[in-house]
């Protein structure tokens, strides 16, 4: 899963898509996932990173990550596979 290049995100969760001119607000967990995606990490790696850092069970985390990625896809922020 690869984020489109040139997508800019600030530390406090403001994200800008230069292709469409749309901007987004993200919470901390969202920002973190975007950063991992930018770094080219796989979903499994992202899950492992978040699990280590946050107090959350495996299944909820998995469900939430895939839901979030579906949102990115809906907003057309991902490279077509």
């Amino acid at each position, binding site marked *: 899963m690869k984020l489109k290049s040139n997508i800019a995100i600030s530390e406090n969760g403001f994200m800008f898509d230069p292709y469409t001119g749309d*901007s*987004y607000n993200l919470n901390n967990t969202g920002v973190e996932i975007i950063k991992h995606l930018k770094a080219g990490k796989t979903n499994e790696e992202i899950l492992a990173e978040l699990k280590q*850092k*946050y*107090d959350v069970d495996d299944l*909820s985390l998995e469900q939430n990550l895939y839901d*979030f990625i579906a*949102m*990115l896809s809906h907003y057309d922020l991902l490279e077509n596979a």
Partner: protein
Amino acid sequence: MEKLRYERPIINKIKAGVPDKYGMQPKIPVKSEIDGIPVKEIVEKYGSPVFVISEKTLRETFQKANRAFQSRYPKVQFAWSYKTNYLDAVCRLYHDEGSWAEVVSGFEYDKALSNGVPGNKIIFNGPDKTDEDLKKAIENGSFIHVDHFDELYSLIRISQNTTPKAKVAIRVNMDTGIYPKWDRFGFNYENGEAWNAINRIMLAENLELVGLHTHIGTYMMTANAYAVAASKLAELAVRTNKKFNHSIKYIDMGGGFASKNTLKGAYLPGKDTCPSFDDYADAITSALINSEIAPDQLPTLFLETGRALIDDAGYLIGSVLANKRLSNARRAKILDIGVNILFTSFWYEHEVYPAQESSQQTEDTTLYGPLCMNIDVIRESIQFPTLKKGDLVVIPRVGAYNMTQWMQFITYRPNVVLIDQNKKMHLIRKQESLKVFKEQELVPEFLLNEKPLKA
């Protein structure tokens, strides 16, 4: 290393340039307890969903309303509107505060009697009173509010064979400057029908005209309409006195005071726009005192306020069943609270609060009920935090009409709990069960003998 508190990842698209009253990120308040009892504890004991009635709020609201009128007018009598909430425990609290009973059917009439209300403290309203109902009401000395001429002539006929005299009032409908004009109940003021009805009653030997009643509408956002109505009833009282030398004992202004809920389509919340009890009291009592009724003959003022007295005392607790994403990526939650038990969600934008500390991040969310029906929507659009399955929510201001208009549909109606002034919980209506419904159903014998489907 201690792990950090987790929050589901959120992405919200910024819609620049579109006017949005949620421009500022609102802080969603948490409603974690009701009258000092944790919401979690209530659910652990009585399940979810569950209705909760606060005795403290109920009494305080009643006393506030009573004070608003008593401090402005010498003779005031409230009558509890049974149809608003006729759970026995609720009715008995109002009777304990001094309220009479206002009923609109034989069923409600019998319920009032069973709650220990004497017959001569029951006001019998409504278009549906059977001959049996009327006979019982006459014999008990109840106040019968006549709705139409067929009922008036039934009363004249029935009262010929009963004692004592029937105590009657007429319900008057009128133009008070508000829309819609409620003209389906009672006799019209402007076209002279009400005056005709008064004349017919005054000529009937066994009927005693004791009062004049109106109920101008529901959820009245302007107190001035009541002033107009009170003036018109006062005019009828003066006219009756002039022609028949007969004093009207009471004027009943009905109900219809708005609660603090927000109606669908309203831009500002109800708590900021609805008149207060003082506003209504001021309009009504000023109109009566300034009328041509002689000061020593001022009638008792009856009030049948329901919604505005009980709404704030009722809460509905429920849980999140699921989080969903709709085809347009919009967030949706399924609650175990549906329109079957929250009937008022058809006309109110109910406030919904999380019952536990949650993220301050919110998403534009649709709240659905649990019914497998497309109409089952609690809120079309609400800025709501990221709750997970099993988290609890609290909907305040649900005391009026929900516990009477609720439907047994698809699932059972839930427990209703009263929290008393000593913070003690009491179950006042049990959750229904399959047994309750089976008891009402009969299967014809020929179907009993049918062989069941094979497994």
